[in-house]
């Protein structure tokens, strides 16, 4: 048999089998539950209002300091779905860069989630140490996203920049670039976030809608564990002790809003 004939024969067999599949699908039968996509939507807020990244809106932090937000970006990684206390699904290669200036980036798509019920989602703020020490990465971790320190290798996990009259800087800016992946050196800024659905269950089954809504409150960056005052800390752009104080706060800035089933 020469090549074109062989290909023709194969195509024929293939099209027959496709037709056969279609026939099967049309037979009425109870559909088995199938894996689906879960959307984790994060809304960046300042207290009760959505974050305005244009810098036009002022907020008040726990030290009574007025501030604006001009940039807000952070890494969400290692997304895991739980049912009760049981880990059911870990999304492989889950690295998301949430960027308030890119609307689509606040909706994190988690594909291939096994059908079933879920009661909580866990994720990390930051990038695991392996990806910090393994050379040039790509996708959300491409250093071209400007979330990477080139002079002291490592990802910036969390970036917020804005203005505040409390800042001692000449241009009234405050800039927090938070990261650090090393354990031995008091610099690990990776923080786990646990979002419990407070008694609700997220049901995943095929194309069925399954959405988790979460708030990320920038006011909590200044307060949940340690009070951060812009007057005392206006620039933090390297790993270190002060970065960890802010990391401990961002660990607690995410709260459950609701789920859509």
């Amino acid at each position, binding site marked *: 048999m020469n090549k074109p004939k062989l290909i023709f024969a194969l195509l024929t067999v293939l099209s027959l089998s496709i037709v056969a599949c279609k026939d099967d699908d049309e037979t009425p039968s109870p559909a088995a539950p199938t894996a689906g996509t879960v959307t984790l939507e994060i809304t960046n807020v300042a207290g009760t209002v959505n974050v305005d990244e244009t810098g036009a809106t002022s907020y008040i932090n726990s030290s009574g300091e007025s501030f604006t937000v001009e940039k807000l970006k952070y890494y969400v990684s290692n997304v895991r779905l739980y049912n009760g206390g049981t880990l059911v699904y870990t999304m492989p290669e889950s690295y998301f860069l949430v960027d308030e200036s890119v609307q689509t980036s606040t909706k994190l798509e988690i594909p291939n989630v096994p059908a079933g019920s879920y009661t909580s989602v866990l994720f990390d703020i930051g990038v695991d140490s392996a990806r910090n020490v393994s050379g040039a990465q790509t996708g959300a971790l491409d250093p071209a996203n*400007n979330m990477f320190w*080139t002079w002291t*290798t490592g990802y910036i996990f969390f970036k917020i920049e804005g203005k505040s009259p409390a800042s001692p800087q000449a241009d009234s800016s405050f800039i927090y670039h938070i990261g650090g992946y090393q354990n031995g*050196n008091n610099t690990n800024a990776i923080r786990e976030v646990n979002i419990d659905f407070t008694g609700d269950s997220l049901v995943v089954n095929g194309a069925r809608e399954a959405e988790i809504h979460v708030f990320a409150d920038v006011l909590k960056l200044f307060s949940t564990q340690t009070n951060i005052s812009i007057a005392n800390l206006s620039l933090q752009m*390297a790993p270190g002790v002060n970065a960890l104080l802010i990391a401990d706060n961002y660990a607690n800035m995410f709260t459950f809003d609701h789920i859509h089933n």
Partner: protein
Amino acid sequence: MMQPGFKNKEMKKNRLLISFALLILIGFTACKKSEESGSQVYFYIPDGFPEPVYKFQNNPITPAGFELGRKLFYDPVLSLDSTISCGSCHQQYAAFAHGDHNLSHGINGLLGNRNSPPMFNIAWFPNFMWDGGVNHLEVQPLAPITNPVEMGESMSNVLLKLKRSSTYPNMFKQAFGSDTITTQATMRAMAQFMGAMISANSKYDKFLKGEASFSTLEMNGLQLFRTHCESCHKEPLLTDMSFRNNGLDANFNADPGRALISTLPQDSGLFRVPSLRNIVLTYPYMHDGRFKNLNDVLNHYTSGIVQSSTIDPMFASGGITLNAQEKSEIIAFLNTLTDFTFISNSRFKESQ
């Protein structure tokens, strides 16, 4: 049915391959492991060298990848105003240091605060820069590209420029099978080029292999080196890769060195121990290029050590004792560390 002409061509090709293979065998009998591509050996472990840190595991060297890396290395497009390339401050004749520059000027004539280090055997480096701040060969070029006083550019803009170019998309496709230009592909091409820079063919190397003999002066210098210098400038790489305070300053306000990265006070004033290979070519010396020549360096170690809280234990009770004759013997030895085949290797020249 195979055509006779085809067979002939195939035989010719085979013969050619065999002769190439023989050439490789003759040229690289010292190799333990090779990063080969077709008939060309790009990377090997010289006799006596340890296992490299960068093993090209996810980034095997190919002729197209290496060529792309070479083009990028010499292309000022990586800088903000297209005036500075990697090769501007890393010149082959100076073993890829910046010849006769204590500090280097970047875009707009801006001056950095550290001496441009040479580049060779960098596949053996666990980290890079005078302070070790860069932890992987594949992210090393990002530091000078984004440093505001060096190339002053953002990687996102570099990618835009490369994508717009008439030549790069095809070169990326040849090298990595896709014309999608990412930071990862760009850095990996550069790692292929830079990682293949091996310098292990100095007179000293030939002496170790019994292929060259040392004069009495050089031999005495080698012995003095092994007594006084080798504990930090460890053979065969001639550095132990550590960070040390070699007594340059009493305080480190001008440049805290390793402490900038580690944030540890005990690391203040510590800098990478440089390799002494090709040392004659890489003047001036020290992290800030303060010493113009090797005499100045040796005089520092004999009579210029400044004590401070983080001084290396080696110098805690002062410097090294050497008389004038011994200094000239050490310098004679240091002269045997120049690898002329490395600095003239056309593979590492800017392609024409």
